[in-house]
């Protein structure tokens, strides 16, 4: 049953992908015929269809198999991007772990003191409107003065993006148990901390996992942005920056690096999905 469903999903994704490519090429073809106008009218198309603005999808995929010089060696683009993605994944993983810890600590802090909840929650929101450009120098300077590599600074930037959904949803999750469940723990004369560990944290999991999924993609975004912001030798962010600078001469490369970033995002999303299944759902299906 679930196998069949997975197969169907994979199939629909594939079909959507094919439709998307057909749409891309169809639009491009139409624009080429009509000199970027809607057929039969004088109205211009919103996006022009030359090979620089919209490279052929085939060229983009072909780019993935072409070689690129990376330092002392020359690699196929897929391997090159995979290596960069691996590095970014590492940063994202650190950022994600730290973000989850910070988010949970904040959530627990706000759970414990109602005043803290009211006082901090709006500011946690405000924090996300502060652009990284103001924070990156502080983070990097701090990390460098401590003697840490820049990768730590990048992970901290990822942390800054990931802690937010975890703190907000975590708080809601920790507050989710029924008052009767809390009373039950109270009736056992359980301490605040054992109530937290035995009741609130497990009860928060249905709220936490969606937040983790969001946080996971955000940790990738944060790492890429951090790489671009701080500057590293490697990572997908670096690839995107390099290729973005060279868009005018080699647009296919930017597209392929963006595709790599999206795939990495999907991958971490999938990882959290799998973790959720392991932690919450396995063995607990309701037998009908």
């Amino acid at each position, binding site marked *: 049953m679930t196998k069949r469903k997975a197969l169907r999903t994979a199939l629909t994704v594939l079909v959507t992908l094919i439709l998307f490519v057909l749409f891309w090429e169809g639009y491009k073809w139409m624009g080429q015929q009509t000199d970027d106008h809607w057929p039969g009218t004088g109205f211009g198309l919103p*996006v022009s269809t030359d090979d620089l603005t919209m490279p052929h999808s085939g060229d983009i995929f072909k780019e993935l198999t072409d070689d690129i010089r990376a330092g002392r060696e020359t690699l196929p683009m897929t391997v090159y991007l995979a290596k960069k993605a691996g590095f970014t994944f590492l940063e994202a993983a650190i950022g994600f772990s730290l973000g989850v810890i910070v988010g949970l600590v904040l959530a627990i802090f706000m759970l414990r003191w109602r005043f803290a909840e009211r006082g901090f929650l709006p500011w946690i929101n405000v924090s996300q409107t502060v652009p990284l450009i103001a924070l990156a120098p502080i983070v990097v300077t701090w990390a460098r003065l401590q003697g840490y590599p820049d990768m730590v600074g990048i992970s901290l930037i990822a942390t800054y993006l990931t802690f937010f959904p975890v703190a907000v949803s975590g708080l809601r999750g920790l507050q989710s148990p029924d008052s009767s469940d809390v009373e039950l723990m109270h009736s056992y004369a359980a301490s605040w901390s054992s109530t937290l560990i035995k009741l609130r944290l497990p009860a928060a999991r249905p709220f936490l996992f969606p937040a983790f999924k969001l946080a996971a993609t955000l940790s990738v975004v944060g790492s890429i942005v951090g790489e671009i912001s701080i500057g590293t030798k490697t990572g997908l962010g670096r690839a995107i920056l390099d290729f973005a600078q060279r868009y005018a001469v080699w647009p296919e490369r930017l597209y392929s690096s963006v595709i790599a970033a999206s795939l990495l995002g999907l991958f971490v999303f999938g990882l959290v999905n799998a973790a959720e299944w392991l932690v919450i759902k396995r063995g607990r299906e309701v037998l009908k």
Partner: protein
Amino acid sequence: MKNLRTASVLPPVLVGIIGLALWEGAVTVFEIKEFLLPKPSSIWARLIDEWAVLRHATWETGKIAISGLLIGILLGVLLALITNRFKVLNDGLTPFAIAINATPIVALAPIFNVWFGLTGTFSNQAVVIAVVFFPVFINTGKGLNEVHPNEIELMHSYASGDWTILREVRIPNALPFFANSLRLAAPLSVIAAIVAEYFGGPQDRIGNVITSSAGFAKYDVAWAAIAMASGLGLLLFGSALVTERLSMPWRISGDIKDN
């Protein structure tokens, strides 16, 4: 009621004041250089000095953020409605929505600049739309989908068709989910608009004020601009909350648990 309002306004204000005081104190005591992290008092001074420029820049950026936000919301809701109607699309499109969401703005902005042009506003609006659209689409879709089967059965018992069910059940049911997505999307629209401005376009916007002052390590001006941006974000967040309250009278009046 009045009591409630002070109770919900006082703590954040207090925390804000204490936070700023700690910030000011830390910069002073640890002799943190102002070109790294300026004092709130210097930021305030710059805010006053540069008010005319900042106000204009905030207004220009605000227009892009708000229009992008509105279009993004519209698009998200529309797509949610369509995928709800045609379930197959949902399976196919959700992974793409996730993929777009996992694509950082810095990667999208250069491409959108090429697609939609550098000199107009649409390339930046498109970045805002791409960022806003995702939470609206996912949440609203969830709200439209997760309807109590009883309510559907009730409508069937009235011999209602899909459209009536959509209007009478699914849409009202999705409102709280939609409202929740607005809370997320509102601050996001501001940051997206600002970051998009780093990649070119007209130069009288808040993102340019931030980059050009940060480029010389004039971080007091940069932070003054950020304060304006945060204000804009808070304003949009507040509007989202007000819209939520106005559009769902049954929620505030009924929820005893909320108090």
